[in-house]
C-alpha cells in the first residue's frame, strides 16, 4: 500500500483499455452519528455502509442491488466523495482518492459522474437545458469558447437522442424519460470513464424504462463506459449487469457474475429476494417456490449481532448470532458469499 498522494496524476485522463481495473473499493464504511434534537448529544451511529469491497473494470457494468435502506445509494455517493467515508479506501486507476481535498479531487470529477433517480429534482428548474448540460464544461473550463461549448452541447443532445433545438427549453417542458436523457447528457458532458447510475429508471413509466435502458447500453458500447448500477429492480440488473453484488444492511452478502447470482444463488437473502420478484407470465405461477421472509429489515442503528440477516433467515443457527460471516469464496460455489451455511440452489429460468 502506498501513501495517499496529495494530488491526482494526469494519467487518470488517458483512456484505459477495456478490462483494465478502473475502480477499487476496499472496506468502505460510512457511519452517520445520530444526535438528539436539542442538545445534539450523540445517541448512536447508523452504519449505513459497513465495510464493502468492490472492483470495477473499464467498460464493465456492475450492479449493486438491495432493498431500501441497505446503503447502496450511500455507498455510491461515498465512492464519488459526495459523502465522506468513515473508513476504507476508494482507488481510481491506482490513485487513492479517499483523502484528497475538495480542490484536489476536482480533476477526478471529469472521469466519474453520476446519474440520479429523480428526473424532476435532478435538473435545476430555472436553467435551460443547454445551460444545465453546459455547466460541467464551464466548471472545468472545458469546451473552449461559448461557440465550442454550444457545439458540444448539441453533440450531447444528439447523443442522448434529443433534438438540439430543444436546448433552449426548460426542464419542466419535458416528460420524465426526456428529463432523464438530459441528466445523462449532463453526466456525459465531461466525457467520463465511469458513470454511477443511481436508480436511473425506477421513477419512469414502464414503456419509457426500456428506452433509457437501451440508451444506456448504446452509450456504453459507443463510449466504452463503465457503469456502477445501483438498483432495487432485480430484472433490470439482470438485463444490464456483468457482475452483481447484493447488499443487506450495509454489507455485501453475495457477489459474483450475473449467472452465478441469478442461476445459482447461495445466500438465503439472495434466494429470497429472487423468489419474491413477480414474473409477468401467468403460466409460471406455480413453478417456483416463493420464500416468504419473516418480519422487516432491522434498524441499521442497531443491527443484529453476527450475521445481520439471521433475524429473518429460516436457516439461522446459534453460530449465526456470534460469528460474523465474511464475504469469501467458501469453495464449490465459485463466487463470494457471506453465509456460514451457504447452499447452492439451482434456479430454473
Amino acid at each position, binding site marked *: 500500500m502506498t501513501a495517499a498522494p496529495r494530488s491526482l496524476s494526469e494519467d487518470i485522463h488517458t483512456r484505459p483499455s477495456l478490462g483494465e481495473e478502473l475502480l477499487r473499493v476496499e472496506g468502505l464504511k460510512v457511519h452517520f452519528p445520530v444526535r438528539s434534537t436539542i442538545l445534539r448529544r450523540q445517541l448512536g451511529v447508523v452504519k449505513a455502509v459497513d465495510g464493502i469491497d468492490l472492483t470495477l473494470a473499464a467498460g464493465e457494468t456492475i450492479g449493486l442491488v438491495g432493498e431500501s435502506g441497505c446503503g447502496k445509494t450511500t455507498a455510491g455517493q461515498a465512492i464519488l466523495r459526495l459523502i465522506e467515508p468513515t473508513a476504507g479506501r476508494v482507488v481510481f486507476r491506482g490513485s487513492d482518492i479517499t483523502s484528497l481535498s475538495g480542490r484536489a479531487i476536482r480533476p477526478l470529477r471529469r472521469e466519474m459522474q*453520476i446519474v440520479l433517480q429523480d428526473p424532476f429534482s435532478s435538473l435545476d428548474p430555472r436553467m435551460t437545458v443547454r445551460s444545465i448540460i453546459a455547466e*460541467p464544461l464551464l466548471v472545468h473550463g472545458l469546451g473552449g469558447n461559448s461557440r465550442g461549448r454550444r457545439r458540444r452541447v*448539441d453533440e450531447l443532445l444528439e447523443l442522448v437522442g434529443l433534438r438540439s433545438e430543444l436546448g433552449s427549453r*426548460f426542464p419542466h*417542458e419535458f416528460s420524465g424519460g426526456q428529463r432523464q436523457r438530459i441528466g445523462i447528457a449532463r453526466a456525459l458532458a465531461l466525457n467520463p470513464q465511469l458513470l454511477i447510475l443511481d436508480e436511473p429508471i425506477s421513477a419512469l413509466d414502464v414503456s419509457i424504462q426500456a*428506452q433509457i435502458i437501451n440508451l444506456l447500453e448504446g452509450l456504453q458500447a459507443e463510449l466504452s463506459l463503465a457503469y456502477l448500477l445501483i438498483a432495487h429492480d432485480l430484472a433490470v440488473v439482470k438485463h444490464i449487469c456483468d457482475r452483481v453484488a447484493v447488499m443487506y444492511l450495509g454489507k455485501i452478502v453475495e457477489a459474483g457474475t450475473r449467472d452465478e447470482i441469478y442461476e445459482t444463488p447461495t445466500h438465503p437473502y439472495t434466494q429470497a429476494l429472487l423468489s419474491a420478484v413477480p414474473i409477468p407470465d401467468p403460466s409460471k405461477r406455480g413453478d417456483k417456490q416463493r420464500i416468504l421472509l419473516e418480519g422487516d429489515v432491522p434498524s441499521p442503528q442497531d443491527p443484529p449481532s453476527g450475521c445481520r440477516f439471521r433475524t429473518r433467515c429460516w436457516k439461522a443457527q446459534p453460530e449465526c448470532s456470534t460469528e460474523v460471516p465474511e464475504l469469501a469464496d467458501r469453495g464449490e460455489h465459485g463466487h463470494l458469499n457471506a453465509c456460514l451455511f451457504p447452499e447452492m440452489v439451482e434456479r430454473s429460468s
Partner: protein
Amino acid sequence: MTDDLRPDEQATDHVDGGPVPGIPPDQSEWDDSLPIQSPWRIAWRRFKRHRLAFGGLIFVIILVAIAILAPILAPQDPNVVDVSASRNPPSADHLLGTDSAGRDVLSRLIFGSRVSLTVGVAAALSAAGLGTLLGLLAGVAGGWIDAIIMRVVDVFLSFPSLMLILLLVAVLGPSVVTIIVVIAFFEWPTACRIVRQMALSIKEQDFVLAARATGSSRWRIMRKHVAPGVLSPLTVVATLLSAGAILLEAALSFLGLGVKQPQASWGGMLEEAQSLTILKEMPWLWIPPGAIIALTVLAINFIGDGLRDALDPRQQM
C-alpha cells in the same frame, strides 16, 4: 392532422447528421411552435389571472406615475402657506380643501406619494438585500455561522420593534433617510428567515448533488443554483415588506417623527387628525390621506398574494 406531423418523419429531422446509430432517439412528438415556457413567463401568465393582484399592480403603477409627475399634476404648490385660507372645506379652488396652514390638501397628497413610495421601496429593498445576504450565508454555510445569524434574527424578532424604532428615530433625528435605515434595520430578519429556509430546501435538491458531482464549488452552487431559487419567495417578501414600511412611515409621521415639515407626507397629513374637532368636523383633512394609505397598502398586499400564487414552487409549472 396532416402527414407532415407524423412523428416517424420528425425523428429524422435532426440538424446535423441525425441520430447516432445504435442509440435510440427520443422520437416523441414536439410542437416547436409552442413558445418557450420560461419560469418567469409562466409566473407572469398566472399573475395576470389573479384579478385583485393585477388590479393592485395597475393601482401602484398609476401611483408611481403620479409621484414622478407630481410637479405637473399638483394644482398648487404644496408648501405655500396661506393663513387666510386655513381649514377651508373643498371648493373649486381647493378640490380637497386646505389644511390648518392653508395649504392645498390635494397637492400635498400628490407630493406625499413621493415620500411614501420612496420609503416603501427603499426600506423593503434594503431589508430584503440585507436579509438575503445573511440568509444565504446562514443557509449555505451552515454550522456556527448559521447558528449565530439565526440567534440574532430571533433576538430582533422578539423585540417590540416599534418602540425601538421610535427611540432610534428620536435619537438620530427624523428624516426620510433615517426612516428608511431604521425600518430596514428592523425588518431584515423576516427576509433572512425565509431566504435561509429556501436555501436549505434547495440544498437538499438533487440538482445541487449533481452540481457537486461535477465539481462545482460551494460559491458557484450558491450563485448559480441557490440564489436564483430564493429569488421568487424573496419577491413576495419584499412586496409585503414594502407595504409594512409604508404603514410604519405613516405611523412615524403621525407621531411627529416622520419627515420634517413642511415636506408633505401622508402620515404627516394625518398628524392633524389628532384633534377631536378636526376628526368630527373636518373630514377632508384626514379621510383622503387615510384612504390613500389604506388603498396603497391593500394594493401592495394583493400584489404580494398574486406573486405568492404565481411563484408557488409547489405548483406544477
